[in-house]
């Protein structure tokens, strides 16, 4: 089973190529044409990410997230989320690598089978780096007015965090 998952990407690529041959498509030139388009997309993403990551790194270095974590801890306790995970929840939408770092530390400190360790793992597994995704998608599409995309995506994140805490309590 695990070999299947590690081989999933080559299997998909192989199957697509084989199907293309069957349908008499020039598979290689299609691949190259698509890849070339990808390069153009990449150039559009760079400025959006430079803007976003500059702000994200500043925010992380400033200690603002720690201050917010202290302020939010009692509130989280009230809705059933372990307050130890607050830093993870704040970092998660802005930086994937930082969230993984904070989460790993929680798991190592409290143990992978503790409620806090499990909650941290489920939070990491069930959410995405929201701001990064938004910057990449809207950067590539040249969107300046993002309308309600950010609040809607943050709603989904919040629901994911709450559900993670409740699911761990319910299932373990």
């Amino acid at each position, binding site marked *: 089973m695990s070999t299947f998952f590690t081989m999933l990407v080559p299997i998909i690529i192989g199957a697509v190529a084989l199907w293309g041959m069957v349908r008499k498509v020039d598979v290689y030139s299609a691949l190259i044409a698509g890849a070339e388009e990808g390069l153009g997309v990449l150039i559009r993403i760079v400025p959006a990410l430079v803007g976003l990551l500059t702000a994200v790194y500043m925010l992380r*270095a*400033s200690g603002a997230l720690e201050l917010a974590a202290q302020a939010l801890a009692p509130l989280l306790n009230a809705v059933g989320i372990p307050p130890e995970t607050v830093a993870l929840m704040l970092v998660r939408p802005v930086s994937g690598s930082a969230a993984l770092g904070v989460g790993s530390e929680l798991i190592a400190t409290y143990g992978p089978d503790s409620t806090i360790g499990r909650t941290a*793992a489920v939070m990491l597994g069930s959410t995405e780096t929201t701001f990064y995704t938004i910057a990449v*998608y809207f950067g590539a*599409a040249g969107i300046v007015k993002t309308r*309600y995309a*950010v609040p809607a995506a943050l709603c989904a994140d919040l629901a994911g965090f709450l559900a993670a805490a409740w*699911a761990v309590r319910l299932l373990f």
Partner: protein
Amino acid sequence: MAAIWTGMVLISILCGLATGNGGAVGAAALEGAGAAVDLCLAMAGVLCLWMGVMEIMKRSGLSAGLSRLLRPLLARLYPEFAGDKEVMDSVSANVSANLLGLGNAATPLGIQAARKMRRRTPGVACDGMCMLVVCNTASIQLIPTTVAGVRLAAGCATPFDILPAVWLASALSVCVGIAAAKLLARVWRD
């Protein structure tokens, strides 16, 4: 986005001054800009590869077949693009990659969908694009391998025992995200 970005920068400066981290904030700004370029280079290969594979799928009719399969669901999520074959094909490929847990492949495919949606409303995120972003930020991950690796490293005997909880949490988060996007689409005024 303009307000959010300015807000993030201003909060960083104020908190940096308040906590005495002013110097670190200055260094971090430059570091972040560099990290963005590193990140783009790191994803360049995967992005080009999957856009190439997508092109094969398009020319061989595979993506059209996929989009017929997912049409009942996607026509409801993206009503304004239900008649647009190209957009539907890209969104279907993006959803399939997400369901298979191929986050690396889902991003380029989603980007392609966003670029095709843009043609109608240049510069402004239409309802479909907001929905696309929400579905991808709350992406359903069937096998969270990275987290399982972290748990294994911390001495866990059964790193995958969190799977049902992860599925439950991500399903709920996707549902809330879709509901929020549909609701905000009705009430949002700009």
